[in-house]
């Protein structure tokens, strides 16, 4: 009886399948990834258990940075840009700033609006010279005191631009921003009959054992 032949097994593995999976994953991540737009105004948002995703279109975002400066920014879609133009033109007409078409275009390109209305022409000028504006070197839209709350003007312009359409008012505040500025922005909303708005937060899970936790577990739809 001869010895049974032991088949000599090759130690090399066929990597084709693994390669396939790797590239499938790779294409998935490439397609789903969305790079964070570099923020001119860095803001650390507080956390909340809210689970609704912040909208991205038809938005008017008011950012409140850590020094209590307020900035206006807009969405990226074409409609958002059109509305931004309408708003700037509205402000231009009402305050007779005398902005040229080029200056308006420069302001639309700007990542945010963060100067008092009277200085819009200057910001447009700086923008055209290619100077990068940041939260640090901009004074912000004045809304620190009730006497000179220019946010009211801007919201009015937005209401005018979004006439008949749904506008998403979004407030993005920094953890350490003081409450009075926030209150003045609320006043600006109220003065223009805008009673609903949303605040951007970072999601956290609901603490276990609390009432909302039990409500979520029971599967009842929220509100």
């Amino acid at each position, binding site marked *: 009886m001869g010895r049974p032949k032991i088949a000599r097994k090759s130690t*090399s*593995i*066929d*990597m*084709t399948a*693994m*390669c396939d999976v*790797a*590239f499938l*994953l*790779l294409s998935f*991540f*490439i397609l*789903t*990834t*969305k*790079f*964070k737009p570099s923020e001119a105004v860095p803001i650390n*948002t*507080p*956390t*909340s*258990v*809210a*689970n*609704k*995703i*912040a*909208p991205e279109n038809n938005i008017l975002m008011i950012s*409140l940075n850590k020094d209590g400066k307020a900035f206006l920014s807009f969405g990226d879609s074409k409609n958002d840009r059109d509305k931004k133009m309408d708003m700037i033109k509205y402000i231009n007409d009402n305050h007779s700033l005398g902005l040229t078409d080029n200056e308006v275009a420069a302001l639309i390109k700007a990542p945010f609006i963060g100067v008092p209305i009277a200085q819009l022409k200057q910001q447009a000028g700086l923008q055209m010279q290619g100077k990068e504006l940041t939260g640090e070197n901009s004074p912000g839209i004045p809304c620190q005191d009730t006497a000179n709350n220019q946010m009211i003007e801007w919201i009015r312009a937005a209401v005018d631009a979004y006439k008949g359409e749904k506008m998403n008012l*979004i407030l993005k*505040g*920094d*953890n*350490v*921003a*003081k*409450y*009075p500025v*926030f*209150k003045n922005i*609320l006043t600006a*909303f*109220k003065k223009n*009959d805008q*009673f*609903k*708005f*949303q*605040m*951007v*937060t*970072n*999601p956290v899970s*609901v*603490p276990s054992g*609390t*009432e*909302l*936790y039990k409500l979520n577990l029971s599967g009842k739809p929220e509100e």
Partner: protein
Amino acid sequence: MAEMDTSGGGHHKKGPGVKKGKKLSTRVDLTPMVDLGFLLITFFIFTTTMSQPTAMRLALPDDKVKPEDQNKIKQSGALTLLLGKDNHVFYYEGELLPDASNFKSTNFKDIRDVIINKKQQADTNLVVVIKPNDESNYKNFIDILDEMSINVVKRYAVVDISPVEEDLIKRTEGGQ
């Protein structure tokens, strides 16, 4: 290691007398490609942002409503939360007593128990009145609104702080 088998069967031996033509291997070493693939995957995994920011909804009351049309809250179900500086929270139940004996100090960790207790006690009458003072910050405000949704408090209001309360906060903070 990583190669594609393209030789098509095991005809290695062509029999005696057949001249072996020099055969170029069609196998490609896939190892570097796989390496690169995984490198890119790791990169995209780390840079991708899965958690999108969420939004908290808030509806404001209309200030123009005449005072007589506004709802009066029952004092038995009222819980007033005052937000001060350095994450201090003060609260009192019902009406503030003239000697301020029901004015208590707490913090964001313990405020949940206060709300839960009050909720059990007051049941449907519960109204939470939130009064942030000028030194509180935005995070405090969001945190307290978050507590409202965590504890499923349906009725709450944000009200301006009164000078008496402001004074009490100042005194309590000064004493600590």
